[in-house]
Structure formats: structure tokens, C-alpha cells
């Protein structure tokens, strides 16, 4: 309680109200007219200790942990549109830590642990729901691969269960078990996986960071970097120049464009990924299910809509929309897996621009330019990473050394051959 009272009034000019049952009742009695804004829409100052470019989940989480864990609160988050207008507000909200490689698994498991305590930490309902993530397998070879992944997870202390077809049938009787082209042999289940409300994650981090003094500056696009003697000491923006001790980039799909302003070329391609939501129906799908013979994943939101997606469109793109062949492909995956879905109407589809790295894994590292730090390469799995990404990027910015669970996310790993290629497809980003 104390955290949100007193000093924040003096510092911020308004008191942030703590969300609690007591305050809910109090507000209800006065007709919900006295709720204050959740965070300050700040104007830029001329200088900060740290400037974060990008007001998506990762940028805001970084600011929160910089302030909370490292005591650095003279921080600005610069966002060219509104916070959450990028991939943070466009994803299918799946969270999990079912990774195979030793360089990846502890990072995503740390993220899962942060998800498990996030709402208490932020005093915000992010609707974290550990409803389980089930990856189906459809052949003996695929079962072996999943058994291997499950074993790797368990050796890292992460929960994993290998289910046979009967166990899957008991869980999801509506899947096609009768003579399907790709029969369901079973699945790898992570019960602690699930979903979270993407917008609420953005708003929760923004609110908590703002309360600790972080300036969240919207409609502020970074258009250039200020250099002095080879070091980057600030940014040019559409709202004037801002100097900074350190600058962290967390711009996801725009990574190559912002890096270009600093003269950097990166091992990244931008690709469009589409997603879909259906009309709301009664509770149907209990957790997250993925089809292993194509690429299709689905869950049901608390409002009742079926939220689903599949592969990238596969060509370089900065347009936040895709094309029809992928729509067809995703719907065919849906029909192959659960024919009942054919009666449900699609309500909306949209696209987001993914920062696809050349091995499918992220980068959290310094760059070759002093003063500039990079958080990128999230491909289409960066939502689940939001808490740990912010945690580790804040650690790097504050201490100039990588956090233990993000040590493998070096920018030079492509040159040195220490790739983290979960899918084993090589330097072909549209296949990761």
C-alpha cells in the first residue's frame, strides 16, 4: 500500500490508486467517477539516465525493472505511436517455457516464474491463466522429438508430461480421432503454460513504471542518433532531441530500421504474421492446443472468441497485414484438427511485423557502438518472453553485463557459430 501512496503524489502530481477490493467498493459507491489515470502521459525532458526506444511489452518491462530492481528511475520510454500499438497488442497471448536448448530454456522458465508473480508485482490484473499448453504429435518420430524436448525441460526443472492418444482424447474429445489424415498419437503437455491478457501486460508495466518515476512518452518517434566521439549520447525524435547515458532499443519488427539510423546492419529480417479471432462461443477449448502436422495453434479467450494462428506469410514485410494463401492454410489446419470449428465464423484477422532472427532466437546484448544496447530477434515468440526480456535487458543496461539466463543471447553468436536454432532449419528466417 505504502508503495503507491505519499511519495508518488509529490513526484508525479497525482496519486496512483492501488487496485484492491476495498478501493473497488469505494469507487462503486461513488459511481466509478473518481478513478484516476493509470499512468502519466509524459512530455520529454532534455536528458535521462536511460532512454528505451519502443513502448511495447519489452520496453515497458525493461523500464519497470530498471526502476524497481536497479533503482534507476530517471528513464524515458519513447513510443512512436501509442503503447502496445505494435506486436504487444497483436499477439495470440500464449505463454510457455517448453524449450529444448540449454541456452533458451532457463530464460523462458525465468519468464514463466515472473508471469506467476506478475499480478502481485504490478498490482494489475494481467489475466495470467495457466490453462496448459498441449503440443500434439502425429507420428512415432515426432513422439521421439517431443519426448526428448520434455526430458530436456524436466532436467531444467520445468514441468512436462508426455500424453498418449487416450489421454489427449479424454482432455479434448472434440478433436478428429477418426481416420484423420494425420492421426493424433498424443501430445506434450506443459500444465504451467497458458495465456495472459496482452494489453493488460502493457498497461500494467506502464502503470508500475510510471509510478516509480519513469516517463512514458507517446507519439515520439526516434528519427536519428546523436553521436559524440564515436559514442551514442542521445536520440533525435519527432518531439525534439533527448540526451541519455544509455540507450536501449526494443522495437521488435522495426529493429532493422532503427538500427540503420545508427549505421548497423543486423542478422534480422522482418516478416508478417497473421492472427485470427472468431465470434464468441460458449467454453469449448480448455487450454492452448497446437497441431503438429501443420502449423496451427488455438486457445479461447475469456470473452469466448477462439484466438488462433499459424505460419508466417513467408516473405519480407513491414505491412501489418498478410495475404489469403496463409489464411487458407491456417483454416485448413483448423479443420484438419477440429472439424467442429467449421461452423464458427471468423470475426477479425490482422497482422504484425516480426523481427525474425537468423537462428530463431533473440538477442539481448551491447552493440559495437558504445551507448547503444539491443533487444531484438523475438520472432513470433516474444510475448511469453516479455517479463524475462525486460528483467535481463534492465540488468544489462544497469550493470553492463549479461544476466545469467540471457548469456547465450549474444549478437556475435552468428559470427562465432554459437547459434541457438531450436528448429534446426538454418539461416532461413521464414522457416523459424
Amino acid at each position, binding site marked *: 500500500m505504502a508503495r503507491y501512496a505519499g511519495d508518488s503524489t509529490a513526484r508525479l502530481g497525482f496519486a496512483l490508486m492501488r487496485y484492491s477490493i476495498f478501493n473497488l467498493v469505494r469507487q462503486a459507491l461513488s459511481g466509478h467517477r473518481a478513478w484516476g489515470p493509470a499512468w502519466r502521459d509524459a512530455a520529454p525532458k532534455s536528458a535521462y539516465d536511460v532512454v528505451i526506444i519502443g513502448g511495447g511489452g519489452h520496453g515497458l518491462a525493461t523500464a519497470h525493472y530498471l526502476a524497481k530492481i536497479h533503482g534507476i528511475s530517471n528513464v524515458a520510454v519513447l513510443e512512436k505511436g501509442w503503447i502496445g500499438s505494435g506486436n504487444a497488442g497483436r499477439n495470440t497471448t500464449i505463454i510457455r517455457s517448453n524449450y529444448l536448448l540449454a541456452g533458451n530454456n532457463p530464460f523462458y522458465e525465468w519468464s514463466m516464474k515472473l508471469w506467476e508473480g506478475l499480478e502481485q508485482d504490478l498490482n494489475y490484473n494481467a489475466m495470467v491463466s495457466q490453462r496448459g499448453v498441449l503440443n500434439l504429435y502425429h507420428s512415432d518420430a515426432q513422439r521421439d522429438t517431443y519426448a526428448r524436448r520434455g526430458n530436456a525441460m524436466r532436467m531444467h526443472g520445468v514441468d512436462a508430461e508426455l500424453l498418449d492418444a487416450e489421454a489427449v482424447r479424454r482432455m479434448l474429445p472434440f478433436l478428429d480421432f477418426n481416420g484423420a489424415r494425420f492421426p493424433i498419437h498424443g501430445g506434450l503437455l506443459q500444465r504451467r503454460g497458458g495465456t495472459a491478457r496482452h494489453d493488460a501486460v502493457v498497461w500494467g508495466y506502464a502503470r508500475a513504471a510510471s509510478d516509480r518515476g519513469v516517463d512514458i512518452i507517446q507519439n515520439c518517434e526516434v528519427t536519428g542518433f546523436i553521436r559524440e566521439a564515436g559514442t551514442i549520447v542521445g536520440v533525435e525524435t519527432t518531439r525534439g532531441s533527448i540526451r541519455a547515458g544509455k540507450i536501449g532499443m526494443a522495437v521488435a519488427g522495426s529493429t*532493422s*530500421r532503427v538500427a540503420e539510423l545508427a549505421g548497423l*546492419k*543486423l*542478422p*534480422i*529480417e*522482418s516478416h508478417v504474421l497473421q492472427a485470427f479471432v472468431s465470434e464468441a462461443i460458449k467454453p469449448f477449448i480448455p487450454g492452448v492446443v497446437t497441431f503438429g502436422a501443420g502449423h496451427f495453434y488455438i486457445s479461447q479467450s475469456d470473452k469466448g472468441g477462439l484466438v488462433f494462428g499459424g505460419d508466417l506469410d*513467408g*516473405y*519480407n*514485410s*513491414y*505491412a501489418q497485414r498478410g*495475404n*489469403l*494463401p496463409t489464411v*487458407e492454410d491456417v483454416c485448413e489446419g483448423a479443420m484438419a484438427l477440429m472439424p467442429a470449428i467449421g461452423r464458427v465464423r471468423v470475426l477479425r484477422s490482422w497482422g504484425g511485423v516480426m523481427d525474425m532472427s*537468423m537462428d530463431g532466437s533473440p538477442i539481448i546484448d551491447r552493440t559495437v557502438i558504445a551507448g547503444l544496447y539491443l533487444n531484438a530477434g523475438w520472432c513470433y515468440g516474444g510475448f511469453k518472453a516479455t517479463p524475462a526480456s525486460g528483467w535481463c535487458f534492465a540488468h544489462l543496461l544497469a550493470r553492463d553485463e549479461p544476466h545469467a539466463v540471457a548469456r547465450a543471447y549474444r549478437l556475435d553468436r*552468428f*559470427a562465432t557459430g554459437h547459434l541457438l536454432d531450436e528448429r534446426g532449419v538454418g*539461416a*532461413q*528466417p*521464414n522457416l523459424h
Partner: protein
Amino acid sequence: MRIQCPFCGERDLSEFAYLGDADFRRPDPDAADAEARFFNAVYVRDNPAGPHDELWYHASGCRSWLRVTRNTRTHEILAVNFPTPSGGS
């Protein structure tokens, strides 16, 4: 998206397979800085927002490789050519 194949005419996107940046050149393995050149060729991309030269394969058509110039912001196809043996267009 539709691509105007020089052999087959305008065809739907679903007939084509995408490889990526058309300016890939296999570096000279005997160059003194061969290692750095291979790293650049294999991993580093311009990834522009705007016109992009890229290789497409007309898999369900004439099976030609095509060098397509496409705007990555709008998906508009600006030009379609055959890749020349030297890699230029």
C-alpha cells in the same frame, strides 16, 4: 499478392516459393577476410522498408527463378525479371 511471371503471366502468390534477398553472393573462399564475408553473406540482411529485390521460385508453374522487386511496406510488385547468371538483373 500476384506476381507477373514472364513465362506464365499473372499468377497467384500460392504458386510461388520465396527464398529472400536476391543480392546474395557466394563470397570468395580464398579472400583474406573470407570469414567475415561469409558471415555477412549468410547472416546479415539490409531488410529495407520499401523496395526490396528478392528471389521467388515459380514452383507450381514454369519452375523458373524470378528476381522480383517488391515494396515491403505495401506488397506492391514493382518489377519482375529473370536473375542473370552473374546475379544482377
